């Protein structure tokens, strides 16, 4: 069944400042966790990303998670990495997702398996992230597989990509994003922003290239909830940059006040990011603490009533089909 319209597409098209959130599926053959977390987020965000075996750790698949979200009336963003699928699997996954009503896809190269729970796995990387975006656009706009064969009907996809404004070579990051946009990316979710000043600098380059007019830029935001999380974020997560000022501020709050301070940092960052020209929204990553997301949305002064509670609510499924 194809659900017409997508919460995220419509919100972006309407020019609203969107909020998306990340949800990591569980390790286990049970959809309950996704269902509950999805339900708790409904009405607070425009769409929810389902990660794809994030960090190279085996989980429920992003397609399965996305279907569960659809069932809960939440617009899913299905993440797909190049790490685990060659061009055959990728194209099949894209077509399957669209056929089942999952429209937003986020295409990324993905973490190398060496950091996951199967470091002995064969890393696929048949295509890179830019080529994945290109492939998806080829499928949708030309109804054509990479082989040149046609596909009928073509999948209706909303194609997303990622960028990390803070990773070297910093001066090349906007141009790299330009490649993805030229390849077909319609929206971009960024790595976590802790250094708003540096992000603003990157956005200036993005605007110089006119990318904000051709793709929606959505800034990554996330709370660092404990000193351990801070340590982990600073040393273990590739591509995340936590400036000293932010770290000092959080540590000064002490163990008790840590989470509170983290939420305050988030709200302030969102406030400042909203003021940057060309930013279309925020993407909240809470790493398992999804219950904090409504709190962050609330504190950041984003008007909750804007969210269409029934973005995908028209989808009806018989109980046993779920």
């Amino acid at each position, binding site marked *: 069944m194809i659900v017409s319209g997508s919460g995220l597409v419509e919100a972006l098209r309407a020019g609203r400042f969107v909020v998306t959130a990340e949800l990591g599926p569980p390790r286990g053959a049970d959809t309950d966790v996704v269902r509950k977390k999805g339900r708790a987020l409904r009405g607070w965000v425009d769409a929810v990303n389902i990660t794809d075996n994030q960090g190279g750790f085996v989980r429920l698949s992003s397609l399965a998670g996305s279907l569960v979200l659809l069932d809960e009336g939440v617009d899913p963003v299905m993440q797909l990495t*190049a*790490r685990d699928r060659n*061009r055959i699997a990728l194209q099949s996954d894209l077509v399957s997702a669209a056929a089942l009503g999952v429209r937003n896809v986020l295409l990324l*190269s993905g*973490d*190398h398996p*060496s950091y996951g729970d199967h470091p002995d796995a064969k*890393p696929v*990387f*048949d*295509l*890179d*992230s*830019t*080529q994945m975006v*290109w*492939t998806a656009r*080829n499928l949708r706009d030309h109804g*054509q597989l*990479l*082989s*040149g064969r046609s596909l009928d009907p073509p999948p209706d996809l909303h194609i997303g990509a*990622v*960028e*990390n404004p803070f*990773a*070297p*070579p910093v001066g*090349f990051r906007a*141009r*790299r994003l*330009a*490649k993805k*946009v*030229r*390849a077909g990316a319609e929206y971009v979710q960024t*790595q976590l922003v802790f250094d708003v000043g540096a992000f603003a600098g990157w956005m200036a380059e993005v605007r*110089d*290239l*006119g*990318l904000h007019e*051709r793709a929606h830029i959505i800034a990554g935001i996330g709370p660092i909830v404990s000193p351990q999380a801070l340590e982990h974020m600073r040393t273990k997560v*590739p*591509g995340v*940059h936590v400036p000293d000022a932010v770290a000092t501020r959080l540590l000064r709050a002490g163990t008790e006040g840590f989470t509170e301070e983290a939420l305050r940092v988030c709200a302030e960052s969102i406030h400042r990011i909203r003021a940057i020209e060309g930013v279309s929204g925020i993407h909240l990553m809470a790493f398992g603490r999804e219950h904090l997301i409504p709190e962050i949305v609330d504190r950041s002064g984003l008007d909750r009533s804007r969210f269409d509670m029934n973005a995908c609510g028209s989808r009806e499924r018989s109980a046993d089909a779920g």
Partner: protein
Amino acid sequence: MPPPRAVPTRPALSSRTLYRLHRLLEPNGLYRFVARVVERHAWLRRPFTRTEESVKRKVFGCRMCGQCALPVTGYACPMTCPKQLRNGPCGGVLPDGGCEVYPGERCVWLIAVERAEAGGHAGDLERLHRPIDQRQWGESSWINYWQGRDDGLWTEPGGRATPVDLGLPVLVTGKGDRER
């Protein structure tokens, strides 16, 4: 023989030298003829390919993907990237420029960007590289290059944010219908 592990590798020669050297290797009638003859005869092809391999492995850490990207990557081989990224660095590059997978090694795309920009070839970095033909691993990239098979491997530089559709080349994978 399977290709060696993909570990970011800094080329042993300066980009200046290599941009210059490249002019000598550009396809022409003679090279095309040689490539055609060498390809047809296994007793020529094998030593030719092995020679290419040993030279390029020493200089670039070449892994013999068979569809060489070097001329547009500042002569830093993108296939030494553990993720085989042909279109630029991933988001995991460490703050000091180290590779996410091999923190002690400098990200090969950082090397590529620096070399291309220093050599006045920044425009090359804007090219979109199409997916490679994975069947070409182990084949001679020179034979492919001289016979014009690499022509659709990447697009022209995109210019600064042109809103026009680039008319990306149709991606072909069939061996028999390489010409588009």
